[in-house]
């Protein structure tokens, strides 16, 4: 392979600044001496610019819908609708009808216990926790209002005034 062909192969990486410093320096020296390779460099630039500016063919709108329908249809575990007295994190997400990523943000606020390195939740306690968070007409205050941890005050404080 003549030196021009060797350098011609390196020109795109030379333009990207992706060559090791010594090889980049050798290429620059060769370019300074060789009109043919300078011509080649100009072609690489022109071709790359034209390629980057090519208009993108776009898929039909229906494809996006088909993709998401298939993805949702392919979800391995459907949302559970029946629950036992103790729930794990995934069951709790289904019980509360939120995705696990959303649930993660609320975990520190949700009453739970730990067993064998696993966070577990009593369904009864969770239902009570939900009641404490509910706002609106028709709800009864708790008979003995429990001291509320500081971080709960903002979300729950309005709730203890419930009366019919």
């Amino acid at each position, binding site marked *: 392979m003549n030196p021009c062909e060797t350098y011609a192969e390196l020109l*795109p990486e030379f333009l*990207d600044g992706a060559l090791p410093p010594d090889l980049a320096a050798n290429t620059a020296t060769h370019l300074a001496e060789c009109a*043919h390779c300078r011509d080649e460099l100009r072609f690489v630039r*022109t*071709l790359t610019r034209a390629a*980057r500016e090519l208009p993108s063919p776009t*898929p039909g709108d229906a494809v996006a819908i088909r*993709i998401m329908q298939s993805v949702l249809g*392919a979800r391995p575990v459907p949302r559970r609708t029946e629950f036992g007295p103790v729930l794990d994190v995934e069951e709790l997400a289904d019980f509360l009808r939120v995705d*696990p990523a959303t649930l993660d943000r609320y975990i520190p606020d949700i009453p739970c216990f730990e067993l064998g390195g696993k966070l577990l939740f009593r369904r009864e306690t969770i239902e009570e926790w939900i009641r404490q968070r509910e706002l609106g007409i028709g709800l009864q205050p708790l008979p003995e209002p429990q001291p509320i941890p500081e971080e709960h005050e903002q979300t729950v404080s309005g709730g203890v005034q419930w009366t019919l």
Partner: protein
Amino acid sequence: MVTHADEELMMQFQAGNVYAYELLCERYRTRTFAFIYRLLGGDREPAEDLLQDIFVKIAGAARLYEPRAKFSTWLFTIARNHCRNYLKSRPYLQQQVTVSADIPAPPGVDAGVLVDTTDNPAQNVQNRETAEILEAAIRRLPDAEREVFVLRAVEGFSHEESARILGLNPATVRTHYHRARQHLKADIGPVLDPTSSTPENRRPA
């Protein structure tokens, strides 16, 4: 507005957040389709079917994804393998590609949209014509050269990323890319750069 990294969205999807995946699909749908479309030589219908298969496959394999790998590299590796398998199962496609290379503008491609960078109408027409000629010339490249050219020049992947996507030695990628350029220069060089001459009469002594 907070922009989440691809890898972060993929992790959220692994944790069960389907909307994170919808965002990723939104982000990569057109780009992936353009890649497939070009690898298939401009065949729209199978390209749309493959696009769907690829995003469904990735959703199914999401638990295998590790954030150490760049999501776009992973996605394009899967896309390229799907195209390869499809082309292997369609040996008569090459004929169709040769025919479609003569079609001025593939359906669904408004060749003027992205190349109209000037208010000069004559320049716009010229840009559009150049884009169409380049697309047709890319379709005429041998498969291996077309893959490398589309990844490197059109999609802007680095040399190393392209080698990873194609499962090739970087030296082989370099050679394919060089050959693709030489083919394109011989084919449409004067159209792209009217001041240059063809390789035949510019060989150094």
